[in-house]
């Protein structure tokens, strides 16, 4: 069931109740939960926030709280699985789902009471009609009967039941045995075609996994409707939205549409606080920004080299690429001394003109898409962050799992880093993000030079054989895989290359022989729709490999190292 009026059907229903909030490990979800928490604080509503990773975590978290809570909110998780089936909740428990993962499970959509999805059904794409995928239960009964009968007919000793059923039939409805048989066959055939049709519809519906609207933004609009929005909440929503763009979860056109809404919120809130503002108050600006990672906190050369878009277009891992980068810098009039030091320490004039210079030359150097609209946050006299800086910082915090630091600790740290009084955590995250990005680049460079990206004809694959502090985690591996695919395609002469997807894998647990496997859609495909979820499932069932589809992102799986070769073979056959 979809809920459109969030204020009435979601928020007001919950006021004064206790709520369990289950949050997935992603930045969008963290931002959304942060916004919700401040909303609930205003109304003194009790809540518990539990971070989870994967389906098993969801089940465990629910089971622990089972019986104590009547309302459960799932943020960025659970939309794509049949929640009632998975958790077996009591009758009086209500689930609210706010999930950016698509496609939503049809059972959740058509649940009439227990599962409520926050969102607008008009925004969803081709949800199968109720009639086309569910048949009435009475029908099913009678047809089951029919099935039984058929079975009996073909079998040897079915006469008893046959007789009893005949006795039940009113005598007026006498049909010859042949006619009844015929009818049954017709019914059966109809049913079979209907089932085939249903399977086809369901396959089409679930074939691709993709992402819908940012959850943080949805929740922010709730705050706006409750008139409880402020600059901080808006900023968190922006960070959530930007994450979707940066990690390639949504198309840039969808992003552009959304930022128009956000921009109106920005100007509204800025005007509202204008009378009491001074230079040190927090302020959000909309401006065109560059797809250069963290360049405000890094040096220009490094930032350009480690940005995926820039590096792939200019092939910066080669000597020629390096030369071209220097050419660009020369033409921009940016001395190397300046370009190699921290951006914040560059000459003021150069800093101010940096954006314009690069924008002017972008076309010439084949990097026209480097410009995009984004938001920056100013507060105090020195603190200036782009939304993307926050995203990379939080990403690094989420991935900073160490021996004495569990993923949950990282989650809570990332949650903290959003508040302004924990600036140090964010700064540390940004430093770690630099390490992450530079090690990704080095990995890409060495693998491309060693030709480690192999092709099966239907897809590329790239397999890391050693555990790695950066790439054994979902985000790190996904970023690396995207970079490698783009880099490989940019360097490949084959005309087919842009149409092939990539599968990358990295061991996560050597002792247990587990690998993380991620599928990246082809470069040429504009939309970030990913068909690997379904493909992995089918390939695994074909070759009897045990895979663990525990992540909410279906293109990420875990697989045993021994099964890998078998699995890749099956996948090759499947995709051929």
């Amino acid at each position, binding site marked *: 069931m979809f809920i459109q009026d969030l204020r009435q059907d979601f928020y007001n229903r919950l006021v004064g109740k206790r709520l369990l909030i289950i949050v997935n490990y992603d930045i969008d979800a963290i931002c959304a939960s942060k916004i919700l928490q401040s909303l609930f*604080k205003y109304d003194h509503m009790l809540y518990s926030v539990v971070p989870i990773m994967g389906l098993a975590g969801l089940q465990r978290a629910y089971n622990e709280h089972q019986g*104590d809570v009547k309302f459960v909110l799932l943020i960025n998780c659970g939309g794509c699985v049949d929640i009632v089936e998975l958790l077996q909740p009591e009758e009086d428990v209500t689930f609210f789902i706010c999930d950016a993962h698509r496609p939503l499970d049809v059972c959740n959509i058509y649940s009439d009471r227990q599962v409520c999805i926050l969102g607008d059904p008009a925004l969803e794409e081709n949800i199968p009609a109720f009639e086309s995928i569910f048949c009435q239960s009475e029908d099913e009964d009678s047809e089951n009967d029919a099935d039984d009968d058929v079975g009996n007919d073909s079998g040897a000793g079915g006469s008893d039941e046959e007789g009893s059923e005949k006795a039940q039939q009113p005598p007026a409805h006498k049909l010859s045995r042949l006619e009844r048989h015929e009818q049954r066959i017709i019914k059966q055939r109809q049913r079979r075609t209907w089932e085939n049709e249903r399977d086809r519809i369901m396959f089409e519906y679930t074939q691709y996994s993709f992402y819908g609207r940012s959850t943080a933004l949805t929740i922010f609009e709730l705050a706006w409707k409750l008139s409880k929005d402020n600059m901080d909440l808006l900023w968190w929503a922006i960070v959530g939205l930007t994450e979707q763009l940066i990690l390639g979860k949504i198309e840039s056109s969808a992003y552009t549409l959304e930022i128009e809404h956000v921009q109106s919120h920005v100007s509204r809130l800025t005007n509202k606080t204008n009378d009491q503002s001074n230079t040190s108050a927090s302020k959000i600006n909309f401006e065109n920004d560059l797809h250069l990672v963290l360049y405000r906190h890094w040096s220009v050369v490094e930032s350009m080299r480690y940005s995926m878009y820039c590096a792939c277009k200019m092939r910066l891992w080669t000597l020629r690429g390096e030369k071209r980068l220097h050419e660009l810098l020369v033409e921009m009039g940016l001395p190397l001394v300046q370009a190699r030091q921290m951006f914040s320490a560059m000459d003021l004039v150069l800093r101010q003109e940096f954006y314009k210079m690069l924008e002017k030359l972008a076309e010439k150097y084949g990097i026209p898409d480097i410009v995009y609209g984004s938001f920056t946050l100013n507060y105090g006299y020195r603190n200036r962050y782009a939304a993307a800086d926050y995203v990379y910082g939080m990403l690094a915090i989420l991935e900073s799992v160490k021996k004495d630091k569990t993923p949950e600790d990282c989650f809570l740290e990332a949650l903290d880093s959003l508040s302004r009084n924990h600036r140090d955590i964010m700064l540390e995250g940004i430093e770690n993000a630099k390490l992450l990005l530079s090690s990704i680049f080095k990995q890409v460079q060495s693998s491309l030079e060693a030709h480690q990206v192999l092709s099966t004809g239907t897809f590329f694959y790239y397999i890391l054989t050693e555990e790695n502090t950066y790439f054994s985690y979902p985000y790190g591996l996904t970023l690396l895989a995207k970079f490698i695919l783009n880099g490989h395609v940019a360097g490949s002469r084959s005309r087919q290359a842009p149409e092939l997807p990539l599968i990358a894998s990295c061991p996560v647990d050597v002792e247990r022989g587990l690998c993380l496997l991620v599928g990246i859609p082809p470069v040429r495909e504009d939309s970030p729709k990913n068909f690997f979820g379904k493909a992995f499932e089918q390939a695994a069932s074909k070759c009897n490999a045990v895979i663990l589809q525990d992540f909410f992102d279906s293109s990420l799986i875990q697989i045993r190292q021994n099964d890998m070769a078998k699995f890749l073979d099956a996948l090759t056959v499947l995709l051929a």
Partner: protein
Amino acid sequence: MAKSNKMFADKAFELIKELERSSQTIPPFDDDGVRQVLEEIKAIFEENCAQAANYSTSGDRTLWPLLNFRHAALQRNKRCLLTYLYQRLLRIKALRWEFGPIIPEDIKTSLCEPEVNFFNTYSKSLASYMRSIGDGQGIDLTGDLRPPKSLYIEVRCIVDYGKFELEDGEVIYLKKNSQHYLPRAQVETLVRQGILQHIT
């Protein structure tokens, strides 16, 4: 009596400085130091007595300034001792507000007998006062030492605690790394025990 570079009342002053410097909640009672100061007082007093007796018989006024000086030193010793004891009492009072009516074992060892007695009596009178106010129901004055900003606080669970029941019957499952928003009054004790962490 006075050695080359040692003054009267040095020892007593040392006692106070020591107390001031210590970072513990309350340092152990310096039995030895107090005894030495008392001895010093006694010695000064006896010398003064002898000379005063000498004066009453001979009427020799030349020793008067010395007598006055000794007396001042004696007074100073006394003041320092009193300060030492009083400062400790203040700390013991603070203990009552912080830790409740029972002294933690490790702190108890650093108190001397009369101090323990003082603590008990102070605790008793505080308790009877708290019972007498608040319309016959009594108020726990030690509950909120600082006025709370809000009725509810955001807490993070640091250890696996299990189920926790609120006064209104709501049961909350406290598991490591979960975050909750709960009534301050009811979770304050858990925060003090280090099970929950208050996040700002």
